[in-house]
């Protein structure tokens, strides 16, 4: 016999209460929240779009926010969720984009931020073992006491967490060009798998999952609870150089020369247009394109790197930028992308992964697009390790002008499709853009889907990421086609 709606809701309510009581037996009640405002505040990331994709699907909203403090608490929680077939969304700082941290199926939001302890710093072997929920800034501060620093870390280090950088791939950031990407720095991770079992995974692991599967997995195979990292001694000198160029071609050439100089690789390397510099720092005292490099090593190596860069700049007619600007840019590197938010009410952006040899093609396609649909824009390229780069495109939109908003999104959509067609992809994948990945990288998607089905047959953990999408490409295409017509 079919129960009426009220009875169903009553039964669900009893289930929720029972579940709550059971998890409160192993997690302090203060960290088991059913407060609707707490849930709302914990249901998003940098992007605002997430909820709108699920707005008309009432069950997307979570019923609980739970904050485990230890691997054991996390494991017990995930076991309990599995027992009740309750969906789980794993999140920490929510500093990623595209709704990576957003619940899509209701259930429990597992907030990892209480897992922020440093368990061990081994100064002799230069390793650190810490909870995945620790912020990069806290880890960096702790390592400093030992004269150590991470080999690489994201420019969002002021807010983002270590675990997040692991599962979102960690291919771009401070130190990657010199020391390698996050994957190279990880010695092992403790993963609480979707069934709540705990496994330590290192390079030599022979289980279902390899370290490669976890890095860039966006948490679909479970929650990273602990991370063991190789770190390095802090460098003893640092210098910055910055040159501006009249043409993009010359700027890219200079950028490539610095990037491919294996003897003295920059600690940080970027290429931006004048708009970006002006929006990020207000005054930019020079030409249209700007290449910025930071060298950090022992004094001799740093000096060699800088000399090399200066010679190369001279040959390419690069115009040196004033020292105060270079220093300020470094000091506030984490803030530069965020500062653009001061110029508008609704900052829109998209991040792309573009191979070294396609930078100019990407830029030409981009400029062609924005020449047709004018909006306030900015271009920022940050070097990854050899082979690839993150390009971030900005659109400065007025929150009240929805035509402009969708128009800019339509431009980003065209560039994304073009990027995939040329064997590049998006840098960050989340709930709202997984459909691109599914359509344009079907082989990888299929591999991940099989693994996901095996480990999480009910699709309870971080659903609608990487292996499944609610959005359909034809609907998105139609939406943006209309948007371009109206804009």
């Amino acid at each position, binding site marked *: 016999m079919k129960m009426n709606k009220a009875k169903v809701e009553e039964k669900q309510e009893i289930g929720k209460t029972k579940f709550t009581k059971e998890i409160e037996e192993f997690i302090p009640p*203060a*960290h088991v*929240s059913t407060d*609707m*405002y*707490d849930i*709302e*505040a*914990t*249901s*998003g*990331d*940098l992007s605002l779009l997430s909820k709108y994709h699920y*707005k008309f699907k009432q069950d997307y909203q979570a019923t609980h*926010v739970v*904050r485990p403090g230890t691997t054991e608490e996390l494991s017990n929680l995930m076991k309990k969720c599995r027992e009740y077939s309750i969906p789980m969304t794993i999140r920490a*700082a*929510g*500093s990623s984009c595209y709704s990576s941290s957003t619940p899509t199926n209701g259930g429990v939001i597992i*907030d990892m*931020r*209480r897992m922020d302890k440093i368990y061990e710093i081994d100064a002799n072997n230069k390793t650190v073992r810490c909870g995945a929920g620790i*912020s990069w*800034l806290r880890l*960096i*501060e702790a*390592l*400093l006491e030992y*004269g150590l*620093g991470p080999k690489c870390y994201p*420019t969002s*280090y*002021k*807010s*983002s967490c270590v675990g997040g950088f692991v599962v979102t791939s960690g291919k771009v950031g*401070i130190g990657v060009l010199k020391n390698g990407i996050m994957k190279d720095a990880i010695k092992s991770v403790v993963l609480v798998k979707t069934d709540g079992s705990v496994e330590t995974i290192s390079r030599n692991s022979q289980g279902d999952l390899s370290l490669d599967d976890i890095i860039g997995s966006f948490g679909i195979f479970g929650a990273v609870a602990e991370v063991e990292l190789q770190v390095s001694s*802090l*460098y*003893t*000198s*640092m210098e910055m150089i910055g040159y501006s160029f009249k043409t993009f071609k010359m700027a890219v050439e200079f950028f490539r020369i610095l990037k491919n100089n294996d003897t003295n690789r920059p600690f940080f390397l970027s290429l931006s247009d004048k708009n970006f510099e002006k929006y990020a*720092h*207000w005054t930019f005292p020079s030409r249209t394109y700007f290449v910025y490099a*930071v060298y*950090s090593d022992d004094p001799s190596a740093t000096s060699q790197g800088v000399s090399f860069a200066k010679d190369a700049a001279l040959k390419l007619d690069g115009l040196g930028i004033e020292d105060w600007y270079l*220093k*300020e840019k*470094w*000091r*506030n*590197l984490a*803030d530069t992308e*965020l*500062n653009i*938010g*001061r*110029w508008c*009410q609704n*900052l829109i952006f998209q991040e792309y992964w573009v191979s070294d040899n396609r930078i100019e093609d990407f830029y030409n396609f981009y400029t062609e697009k924005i020449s047709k649909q004018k909006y306030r824009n900015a271009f920022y390229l940050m070097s990854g390790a050899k082979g690839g780069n993150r390009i971030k495109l900005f659109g400065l939109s007025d*929150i009240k002008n929805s035509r402009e908003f969708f128009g800019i999104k339509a431009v980003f959509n065209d560039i994304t499709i073009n990027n995939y067609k040329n064997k590049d992809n998006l840098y960050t994948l989340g709930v709202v853009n997984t459909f691109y990945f599914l359509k344009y990288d079907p082989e990888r998607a299929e591999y991940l889907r099989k693994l996901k089905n095996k480990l999480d047959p009910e699709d309870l953990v971080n659903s609608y990421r990487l292996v499944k999408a609610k959005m359909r490409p034809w609907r998105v295409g139609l939406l943006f086609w209309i948007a371009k017509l109206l804009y």
Partner: protein
Amino acid sequence: MNEKVSEDVKKVVTSGPTVSGMFAPDQENLVEPTSKSEEDYERCTQCGYCRLVCRVYNTTYAERDYAGGRNRILKSLKKKEIAFDKEKIIDAIYQCMLCGNCRTVCPSGIDTLEVFQTYRRTAVRKGVMPEKLQILKNSILTNKNPFLESGTDRFNWCDSQSCNEGHKAYERGAEHARKIAFGELKPSDIEEHLVGYFVGCTSAYRNNELSTATSRILDKMGVKFIVFPDEYCCGSVLFRTGLEDDAIELVHYNVDMIRKLGVNEIVFSCAGCFSTFTTEYNKFTEGDLGFELSHMVQFVPKVAKQKGLKIRYTKRTKEDPLIVTYHDPCHLGRYCNVYDEPRELIDMIEGVKLIEMKHNREMSWCCGAGGGVRALYGEISTDIASTRLDETVACWEDINEDRLKEAIETNAEVLVSACVFCKNNLHLAASQTKPDLPVIDLSQILEDCEFY
């Protein structure tokens, strides 16, 4: 690390992000935000900088409790995506000290203090009213103080026995007010620079050691000040908790009362009263209060310089100074930008030496008492104060290490502040967790000083 390498590393790491810490976005080359309004939360990019500095979040770990999370709630409320439940929303509104550290680090330049005070005000107008807050409100409106005390007992602290300096100031104030009331004296006829001491409710009813110390310091410095026999609560607690509508009457009353007396400068020992006059009173009088405002930490060094006075702490010597660390009160620092003067003052005192805590000035950690959190969420407030004490102890451990290196005998040190609420909350936490840690107000050190 050897010492040379350590020095080199320090030079490198203080110049950039490698380990540069959670500094404020203090770029000189940074444009002001395009718009600023009560609805500034719309511009929040959810970057999460404020999460790291929020003392409440770092105690509760709840996203609801820091500025970015609150901004998200505000956006959803505006779009009616979540319901406004006047009971359930109380914690999401009031579990915040309004310390302003989030405003300091916001790269979008959002005035979070304005946003959250507006949020509270709007919520109160919609019927949100925590029970304890209702009691405070009633007491302020009825008794002109938040402590349920009789208004007539406001000056019990300054009878001739317990504080003769305060008593004389009270008598001068009463006589001055009488002359004005009876037309024997016109404000325009007052030739001297008349200084009034606005005592404030907490110093008057709960922390007489502050009002007493302040009166004695002013007297020692030769300042012929008055207190205001008709002083009412400044309304600080009402402004901070969304009850601004009820505070306006107090603003007009106090301003009129002071103006009528022809006082040129008001001195405060309470950072809360000082910031309320500086920010809110100035706003309601369109920046034309008609008298100057000085906190004691500003007034003392100013007068000492004018009169060529030196200050010596009588309990210690130059060679064996009392080592203090200074806790910046939010109401003086982030609210009113008073950072240099208290340090300058401590520097002026022979026999006292200042050592900074890690988080100081704009990035100082809140003590946990502000914004109604002490009254409404005592436990959280104490937890937050305890973390500040941990930092104090850590700072002292560093000091002691240095001192041992220098083979100087270790002496007791104290944590000083210039806000009665900071003092009380930190003192309470210390009594529970670190009973050997003295927490005092700067005026209590000055009370033991000679001015010569």
